[in-house]
């Protein structure tokens, strides 16, 4: 079957810069976020958390806590009805029953009239623990004699994957001109949204639950939450108000259903908002991963084969670990034409914070390792890093050994433009001269990484991929947009509004983009896997054409002119030949509700990315309709006396298909690269040898501030993804994943050392420089 191929339109609004539709509400302080919601009769919830990383719970005495004035209910793992749940592996209770598996694990919960009463009650719960030996490093999880965290996972291995497609890797390695091996390890990276995890829940007498939640996946997460709470999915309604950032952390997670569980027993609405320490302790940060990568090359730099071994640390509970591990194993294989691919991964439990989705979803980890690795290879083969990539980049319509295929693909353009914009080649020459001066202790470097991500990942959810959009024109001619893809600050409501304005020729004031309420919006999956814009604008394109044809049809009846002679202009259906002959949307909308009593004009659309199928048992089949590419560049200096790295400027050049809102997509690149920058150089949740998180505050867990963030330049190459109506691919995750390897490659360019274990701190750089010096001295003395 021939694929539908959409063409780029002559856009007036799409591709321009538009202020976000909700910005005015936000700058005036009027936006009500989840943690601002106060319902009549509402109580506050709070959890008691384990002080031990691994301990048997022998007894929980709540008698004193119940006596605290203002306390309505005190819950333990044993006095509630609850079920093991989890988005992929059902391994977690909302309140631990017999055993706590990390410092921060919920062991009891209370509801009270204010936070002070809750705090007092929490302090009066007496828990008798029997501490157990804990696993605090993923490298220890599979060792003989390691304590077992979950009975269901022998050797603490939750999943073992082995994926092999294309040519035989062993054969390829045997016959290759050059084989390169490298080891890399990534750190525990916290999302750092400014509004902590929050939810407000109402549990009615018929076991219907309404949950106001900061959530990226309102409809889909109902399935997970309903399991945890033991209610039918249809009893759970999720309303998604504006919320203060997600970055992947706010898919299915325990705070929302725990709040509902407390509300059930309190028999009053309950607001559960984590304090910042709790959020650090038990949100779902990025999985740390260890990589061993082995690649095969011919003399001319042709990429022949790759073997990857990964240990992925999912902490105490699985969350989305399996999908994330799979992404780390093979996502990057759509960017390079390598024909022998094998990836093996052990996804292990440890007694640390459960890890989960964070912008990049395993692919960020892999990019750090792989794009570092490629620069290492380039040096050995004596081929420039850009030239090595250029010789191996996939192009348009490339099908890889996993069965994935690209449609639009401008990765070469991204790299070319990125190197040009940053003056990479000139600077490499200039810096070489400057750095050769031994008296100069500030060494300069520039480096880059290429990147790829999906626009929706078909392997995530089996039943379907796609999105729906529902448009409703009310009796005054105002258009309402209903979508299941939530706005968490990335600006998808503005994107939707712009698409409506473009096709219907309607003013922004007459477009209302609603926030998801699962009782109202079409069924859908939400915003993760960088799917929001690609999927929802695909559906919106169809819904808009549906509404457009209805407007033209009714306009034709009113005006007595054939439909073919009519077009839409400034909220009128107008004759193409005689602009005096026109009917306003308001008149058309009113005629429709009168002719079909009360019924509004609807526009219905849905979108399935063509050529995308759920992976088979061997993980074969194309997982995305729109692979988005980019090149990120970092220019920096390293102080060889202190080891300190100071990034001066970064560039993010992307192929995101057709940008819809240029203002927002630039903002995505800035924000993503800033997070990648922080991850590369400063961020890491650090545990002590007792399994306690050492830096659960913004003071100790350092995120980039206004003082240290470098200048970031965002640019987009000309591209149009022909599988979706408006040609848009993704940016959310692609924007983060190149920064860390670009910085790593720039550090190497400056001082000739690589810090393959993140983050690249001054201490590690200094140590590596000293080792390098010692090594050189030894060499000189031998000579």
């Amino acid at each position, binding site marked *: 079957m021939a694929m539908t191929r959409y063409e780029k339109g002559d856009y007036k609004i799409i591709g321009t810069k538009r202020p976000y539709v909700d910005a005015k509400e936000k700058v005036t302080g009027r936006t009500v976020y989840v943690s601002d919601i106060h319902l009549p009769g509402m109580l506050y919830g709070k959890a008691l958390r384990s002080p031990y990383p691994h301990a048997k719970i022998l007894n929980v005495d709540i008698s004193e806590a119940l006596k605290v004035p203002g306390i309505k209910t005190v819950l333990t793992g044993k006095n509630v009805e609850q079920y093991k749940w989890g988005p992929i592996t059902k391994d977690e209770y909302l309140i631990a029953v017999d055993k706590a598996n990390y410092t921060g694990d919920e062991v009891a919960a209370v509801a009270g009239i204010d936070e002070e009463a809750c705090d007092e009650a929490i302090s009066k719960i007496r828990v008798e623990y029997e501490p157990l030996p804990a696993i605090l490093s993923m490298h220890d999880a599979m060792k003989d004699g390691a304590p077992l965290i979950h009975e269901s996972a022998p050797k603490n291995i939750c999943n073992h994957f082995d994926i092999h497609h294309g040519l035989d890797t062993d054969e390829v390695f045997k016959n290759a001109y050059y084989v390169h091996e490298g080891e890399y390890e990534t750190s525990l990276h916290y999302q750092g949204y400014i509004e902590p995890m929050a939810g407000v829940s109402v549990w009615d007498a018929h076991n219907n639950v309404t949950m106001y939640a900061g959530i990226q996946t309102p409809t889909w997460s109902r399935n997970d939450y309903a399991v945890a709470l033991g209610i039918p999915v249809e009893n759970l309604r999720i309303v998604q108000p504006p919320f203060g950032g997600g970055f992947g952390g706010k898919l299915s997670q325990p705070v929302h259903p725990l709040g509902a569980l407390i509300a059930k027993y309190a028999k009053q609405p309950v607001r559960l908002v984590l304090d910042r320490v709790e959020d650090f302790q038990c949100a779902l940060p990025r999985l740390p991963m260890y990589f061993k990568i082995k690649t095969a090359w011919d003399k001319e730099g042709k990429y022949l084969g790759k073997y990857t071994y990964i240990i992925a640390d999912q902490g105490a509970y699985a969350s989305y670990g399996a999908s994330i591990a799979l992404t780390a194993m093979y996502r990057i294989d759509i960017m390079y034409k390598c024909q022998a691919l094998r990836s093996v991964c052990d996804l292990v439990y440890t007694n640390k914070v459960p890890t989960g989705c964070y912008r990049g979803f395993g692919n960020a980890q892999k990019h750090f390792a792989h794009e570092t690795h490629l620069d290492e290879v380039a040096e050995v083969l004596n081929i420039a890093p850009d030239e090595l990539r250029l010789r191996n980049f996939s192009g348009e319509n490339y099908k890889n050994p996993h069965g994935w295929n690209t449609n639009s693909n401008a990765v070469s353009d991204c790299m070319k433009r990125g190197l040009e914009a940053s003056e990479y080649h000139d600077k490499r020459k200039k810096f070489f001269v400057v750095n050769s001066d031994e008296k100069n202790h500030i060494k300069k470097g520039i480096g880059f990484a290429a990147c790829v991500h999906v626009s929706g990942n078909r392997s995530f959810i089996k039943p379907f991929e796609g999105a729906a959009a529902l448009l409703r024109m009310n009796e005054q001619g105002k258009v309402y947009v209903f979508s299941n893809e939530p706005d968490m600050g990335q600006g998808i409501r503005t994107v939707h509004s712009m698409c409506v304005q473009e096709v219907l020729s309607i003013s922004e004031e007459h477009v209302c983009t609603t926030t998801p309420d699962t009782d109202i919006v079409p069924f859908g999956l939400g915003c993760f896997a960088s799917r929001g814009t690609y999927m929802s604008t695909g559906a919106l394109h169809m819904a808009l054409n549906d509404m457009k044809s209805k407007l033209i049809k009714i306009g034709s009846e009113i005006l007595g002119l054939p439909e073919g002679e009519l077009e839409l202009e400034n909220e009128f259906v107008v004759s193409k030949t005689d602009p005096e002959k026109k009917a306003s949307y308001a008149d058309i909308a009113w005629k429709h509700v009168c002719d079909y009593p009360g019924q509004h004009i609807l526009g219905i659309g849905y979108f399935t990315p063509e050529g995308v199928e759920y992976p088979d048992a061997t993980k074969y089949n194309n997982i995305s309709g729109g692979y988005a590419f980019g090149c990120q560049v970092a220019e920096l200096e390293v102080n060889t006396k202190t080891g300190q790295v100071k990034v001066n400027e970064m560039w993010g050049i992307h192929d995101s298909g057709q940008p819809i809102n240029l203002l927002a997509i630039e903002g995505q690149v800035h924000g993503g690269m800033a997070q990648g920058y922080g991850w590369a150089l400063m961020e890491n949740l650090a545990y002590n040898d007792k399994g306690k998180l050492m830096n659960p505050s*913004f003071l100790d867990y350092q995120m980039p501030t206004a003082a240290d963030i470098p200048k970031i330049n965002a640019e987009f190459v000309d591209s149009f993804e022909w599988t979706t109506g408006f040609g848009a691919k993704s940016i959310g995750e692609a924007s983060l994943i190149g920064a860390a390897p670009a910085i790593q490659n720039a550090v190497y360019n400056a001082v000739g050392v690589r810090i393959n274990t993140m983050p690249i701190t001054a201490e590690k750089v200094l140590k590596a420089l000293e080792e390098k010096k010692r090594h050189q001295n030894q060499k000189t003395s031998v000579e």
Partner: protein
Amino acid sequence: MDMKTISFSVNGKPQKVHVRTNWTLSSVLREQLGLLGTKIGCGEGECGACSVLMNGKTVTSCLVLAVQADGAEIITIEGLENMDGTLHPVQEAFVEAGAVQCGYCTPGMVMSTIALLEKHPEPTEEEVREGLTGNLCRCTGYQKIFEAVQIASKKMRRG
């Protein structure tokens, strides 16, 4: 816990509230006065989301006890708009520049920008960075916020 009555001015209006002596200014603004624009991101004075102006200077209102604000003049994000609904130039600039994504840090960031421009009407890049260093933003990478500060500076100097 002891209770005390405090009188202060909030956004130009006199307020008299009965507070516990351990309540913070942010909790009184949010819970007693319904001024939810002042956000809580950490409760430890580290993220800056709760920044308000107290006697013309920015404070993190989650660290100020309400009793310390007795007699003070407080301006919150809700106090910037004019009666006719026109925005303060700093608010306008944040909208125009796209400096607002999730918006949770925005009220604090706007308040700090106002204080910054008060001190440096034509700020250098360094002065902007220093002036906003107490306000964390995780969405924007600060780039468009820097832009917004310069736009606001121009707007305010134009009057």
